[in-house]
């Protein structure tokens, strides 16, 4: 039963193709009007899960509820969902207006009313007046808009989007992300968005389900997924991350003292994690949470000495690799206000200090990586 306030509920859904488990006991609740993303690398099961919401695949186990109704027995044409396909699936034998009006067949509207609805839908995606265009005269971005209008004209309860921006170039994609978000907020329709692009998922979503190997590893807001990943896989997939093998040497109140290879002692906030002294864990640190300085500065909870191995200036920020004795890989550091080389004396090969706060350290369970 979907007893909570969730609007779209995916309950322990499993799908197998032969011996391959494409979706493995996934449990997700999505609220009404939420922009929800399924994020993961290709082959993680996100598209299969979306296709089960649309009705193109049936779950082997589990059930999907939309607005409280179980939908597993419903074929695609009876579901209150509509989909924007990855390649848009614009019907080539119909013009733009006929494409958009395609889903209105059962409503049997008078011609004028239908034309009005079509124009309204086209204006919504900023294609007003394009109705007479042939579908092969459209650019990639326009095709995407037509697909969106065609799906939205049916006023679905849930709109499913299968990597709709994947085929567009970077600039257009970023514009469409903003538009898509605005559209979703003005319509208040629940969006389920599949993407492999973590930046896109972060930009658009209220919440994200990070998927890998058919499982939903973490379901949380973009901020939480970024700052409080619950597993090494999630931490590794979202943004950049430094990982350090460590052992818990003591815990005191909210703080733990770790013994990390190459670092010696490292202080970390526990953040609710129950860790026993002696436990093997992995400490994770975002590159931008590390502060780079030419000399040791006091005050920070953690500090380590290293050698600047490589530096790259990217305009709005700079990336550094710092070699720390005893570590296999150099530590990645990102900073906004460090120029590379020149006046600040940060030349490659220079000795540097890294400092960071104890609450920047993310403690993760050890797992095989």
């Amino acid at each position: 039963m979907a007893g909570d306030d969730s609007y779209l509920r995916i309950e322990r859904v499993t799908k197998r193709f032969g011996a391959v488990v494409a979706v493995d006991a996934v449990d997700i609740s999505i609220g009404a009007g939420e922009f929800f993303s399924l994020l993961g690398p290709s082959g993680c099961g996100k598209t299969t899960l979306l296709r089960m919401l649309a009705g193109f695949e049936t779950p082997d186990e589990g059930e999907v509820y939309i607005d409280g109704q179980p939908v597993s027995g419903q074929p695609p044409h009876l579901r209150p969902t509509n989909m924007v396909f990855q390649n848009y699936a614009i019907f080539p034998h119909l013009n733009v207006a006929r494409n958009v009006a395609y889903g209105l067949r059962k409503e049997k509207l008078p011609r004028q009313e239908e034309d009005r609805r079509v124009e309204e839908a086209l204006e919504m995606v900023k294609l007003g007046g394009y109705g007479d265009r042939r579908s092969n005269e459209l650019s990639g971005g326009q095709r995407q808009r037509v697909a969106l209008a065609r799906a939205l004209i049916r006023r679905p309860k849930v709109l499913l989007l299968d990597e709709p921006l994947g085929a567009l170039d970077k600039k257009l994609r970023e514009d469409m992300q903003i538009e898509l978000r605005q559209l979703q907020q003005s319509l208040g329709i629940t969006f389920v968005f599949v993407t492999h692009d973590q930046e896109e998922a972060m930009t658009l979503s209220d919440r994200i389900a990070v998927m890998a190997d058919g499982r939903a590893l973490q379901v949380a807001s973009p901020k939480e997924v970024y700052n409080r990943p619950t597993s090494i896989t999630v931490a590794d997939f979202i943004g950049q991350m430094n990982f350090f093998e460590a052992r818990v040497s003591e815990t005191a109140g909210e703080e733990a003292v770790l013994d990390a290879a190459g670092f010696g002692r490292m202080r970390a906030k526990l953040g609710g994690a129950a860790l026993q002294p002696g436990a093997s864990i992995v400490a994770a640190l975002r590159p931008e949470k590390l502060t780079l300085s030419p000399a040791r500065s006091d005050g920070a909870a953690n500090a380590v000495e290293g050698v600047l191995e490589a530096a790259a200036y990217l305009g709005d920020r700079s990336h550094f690799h710092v070699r720390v004795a005893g570590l296999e890989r150099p530590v990645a550091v990102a900073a906004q206000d460090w120029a590379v080389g020149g006046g600040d004396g940060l030349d490659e090969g220079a000795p540097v200090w890294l400092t960071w706060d104890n609450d920047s350290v993310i403690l993760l369970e050890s797992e095989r990586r």
Partner: protein
Amino acid sequence: MSRAAAFYRPNRPLLVYAVLYLAFLYAPVALLPVFSFNDSIYAAFPLQGFTTQWYADMFADEAMHGALWNSVKVGAVAAVFATILGVFGAKAITRFRIRGVKPVLGVIMLPLVIPPVIMGVALLVLLSQSGVQLSLITVTIGHILICVPFSIVTLMASFEGFDKSMEEAAADLGDNSWWAFWRVTFPMVFPGILASLLLCFTISFDEFIMAFFLAGTEQTLPIFIYGQLRFPQRLPGVLALGAMILTATFVIVFLAQWLRGRSPGVAQSGSE
């Protein structure tokens, strides 16, 4: 000089071979229209003079009219039925995950390699054993059998040429499979369907052996022509008829091939 350039250089011996091959293939066929305008009842050189008398004679022949009409009826019905079966078969093969689809496809394609004599005799035995009267209907059944493989091959290209997600989009937008077929699949594969109809019609129209075994008292055009050959003085008329059939067949087959390359879905998948 790169290997690729050497590969694309014109190759004279191969060109000669190609020309000879085409001449061998089509020269006898080209002689047919030539003799059909020759003012002599013997199909032999030297040519005697130009006449359209053989065409006039043939057009006036009542028996020919009957045979032509029979062939058109059989061809049309066989083409429609073979194409309907072809649509089902091609859709099933290209769209559904079927266990053992390869062997099934092999069995469907079998009539392409079984000699028509064997097929004709086999059908004759079967039909007469089950007490079915030989008629144009039995000829049609035989022709459907040999047309279906051609129809399936033609239509499979059409079905494979367009993206399965088009049909899914139709379903997603509220169409059950019947509506989705009429509103999306059918328009997309329509050129293929037309090509299949034309191809099957010509196959049936030209077919002799099966018709020879399975026709009762009513004859199709090829059987009529075969009958005419017993009378030497009828030969020029047969040549005239043959020249016309040849022309019509060429036109229809070229049309079918042209249509096959024109599916909207084919262009679609090329741009992705």
